[in-house]
């Protein structure tokens, strides 16, 4: 740690925006974990780029329609009033992340985090254009030439095009993508849509092309607090020091034990493949995103040498120390219970959700009015939101004060599917029954054709007080 600090101080005078950082050229790696990450990347990118194309009942299946203030998720339509579900969903996602972290460490970082996923895609493009790690390093060291310019230009051109596509699809999650594509082709995009395509595209290019591991190190809150979820039974990537040390090169087939050496051949491949540029043999470090590239490459080397695999491996602290491992520990049980309870609660509340909303707005211009008959009258505007998929006619009833008269339509209030109707009503009360300046009223609204769709909302009736 002290060594690292001195390095930082030494490099400070450079004052470069992205620097005090050596560019990392991760070497390409093959193996079981690399394949796992590749499938993860393909599935997640597939969901991202193809998701908005899914159709459901003639509309985009998943659409967070911000301009219309409605979220469509297959059969469901969510309104701003349903915000609580989104909050609950985020809580569930957070608990799930805690559980996964406690069990398997930073698998989120290594396989599923958008930062990892897009960085992998950008690395793939970089390798296709500039070649292997060695040729990339050579190219960066070389002076500017036409060939270098051409390669760099091609790389950035592909990166930028890919980023623009990413930005476009991002906006497509929030405004219908079919319509968005048509308007793009006829050059009729709105200024804000263009802005967000560029903004998100630029963020993709910057984060996946330039910032890369620095996002994990400096920007990610999860990377900072994930260690709080760790215990001695959490899977981490670890170098078996007892077996590996003392490291050193040797001839293939030589008796390294007799030479007094450990199993580590000191080939430095584990450092070359690391996307965050660390040496796993120095122990667990916060920069390690748990991608297991070093596990894959070391196993390849061990196989070639004819040694036992897993010198670097997914393992737990307890396993390394030769202690007993336990899977169901209190931490895990608590997370599982929390996760189950919150998921069930969310599903139950969505199942019981009444697709009807009612806002009651009292007329602002006057507190109350006395009619010719000596009644006290209040005027309200009702906003009836039909959040169901079909039209409904609703009947309204008001209670709370004796002898209350509601001036309202007889036929009920018709509201088409997915729309809001504003409706003015007048309520009259005999002042004899008013005991306070403000009296609570209850508005009951229910669908005439479906008894299950009914809600009640409180309101206020204002009047004079006669003591």
């Amino acid at each position: 740690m002290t060594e690292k600090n001195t390095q930082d101080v030494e490099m400070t005078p450079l004052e470069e925006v992205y620097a005090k950082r050596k560019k990392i050229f991760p070497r390409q790696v093959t193996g079981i974990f690399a394949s796992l990450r590749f499938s993860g990347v393909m599935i997640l990118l597939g969901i991202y780029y193809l998701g908005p194309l899914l159709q459901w009942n003639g509309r985009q299946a998943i659409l967070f329609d911000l301009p219309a203030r409605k979220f469509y998720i297959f059969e469901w339509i969510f309104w701003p009033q349903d915000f609580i579900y989104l909050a609950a969903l985020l809580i569930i996602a957070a608990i799930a992340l805690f559980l996964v972290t406690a069990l398997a460490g930073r698998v989120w970082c290594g396989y599923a985090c958008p930062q990892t996923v897009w960085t992998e895609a950008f690395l793939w493009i970089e390798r296709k254009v500039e070649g292997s790690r060695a040729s990339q390093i050579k190219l960066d060291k070389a002076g500017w030439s036409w060939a270098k310019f051409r390669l760099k230009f091609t790389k950035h051109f592909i990166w930028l095009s890919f980023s623009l596509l990413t930005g476009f699809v991002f906006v497509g999650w929030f405004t219908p993508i079919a319509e968005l594509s048509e308007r793009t082709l006829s050059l009729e995009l709105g200024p804000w849509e263009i802005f967000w395509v560029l903004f998100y595209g630029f963020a993709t290019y910057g984060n996946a092309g330039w910032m890369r591991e620095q996002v994990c190190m400096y920007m990610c809150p999860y990377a900072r607090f994930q260690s709080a979820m760790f215990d001695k039974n959490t899977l981490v990537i670890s170098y078996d020091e007892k077996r590996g040390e003392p490291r050193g090169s040797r001839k293939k087939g030589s008796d390294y034990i007799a030479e007094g050496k450990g199993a580590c051949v000191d080939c430095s491949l584990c450092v070359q493949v690391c996307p965050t540029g660390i040496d796993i043999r120095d122990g667990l470090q916060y920069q390690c995103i748990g991608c297991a590239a070093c596990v894959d490459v070391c196993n390849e080397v061990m196989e070639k040498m004819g040694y036992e695999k897993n010198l670097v491996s997914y393992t737990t602290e307890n396993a390394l120390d030769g202690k007993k491992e336990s899977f169901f520990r209190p931490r895990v049980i608590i997370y599982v219970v929390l996760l189950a309870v919150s998921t069930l609660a969310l599903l139950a509340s969505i199942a019981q959700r009444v697709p009807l909303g009612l806002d009651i707005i009292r007329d602002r211009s006057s507190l109350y009015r006395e009619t010719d008959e000596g009644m006290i009258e209040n005027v309200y505007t009702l906003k009836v939101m039909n959040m169901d998929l079909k039209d409904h006619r609703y009947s309204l009833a008001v209670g709370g004060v004796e002898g209350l008269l509601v001036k309202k339509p007889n036929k009920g209030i018709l509201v088409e599917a997915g729309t809001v109707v504003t409706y003015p009503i007048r309520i009259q009360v005999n002042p004899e029954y008013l005991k306070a300046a403000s009296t609570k009223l209850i508005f009951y609204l229910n669908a005439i054709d479906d008894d299950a769709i009914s809600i009640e909302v409180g309101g206020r009736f204002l009047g004079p007080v006669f003591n």
Partner: protein
Amino acid sequence: MSETSKSVPKIQRIVAILWPSFVVSGIATILFFTLFDPVEIIACIGGSDISRMGYYSIGFFMFWLLTSLNSVLTCYFLKPCSK
């Protein structure tokens, strides 16, 4: 410059101001516009006709400006006082 700010990479300092404020302004934007429909507010007070997307975007950047101001002040007050 103090020892602490010297040992922190510049990118980390920039990120420490812009990034948390970005995240918080995102949350603030979601909460604010879930509660209030910008089109209705503007209809009440009278204003120009920008699309909802426009109001959301302006709202987001207003929040970002305020929250980054907050981060800047926090960083400023973290600097040791001169004698």
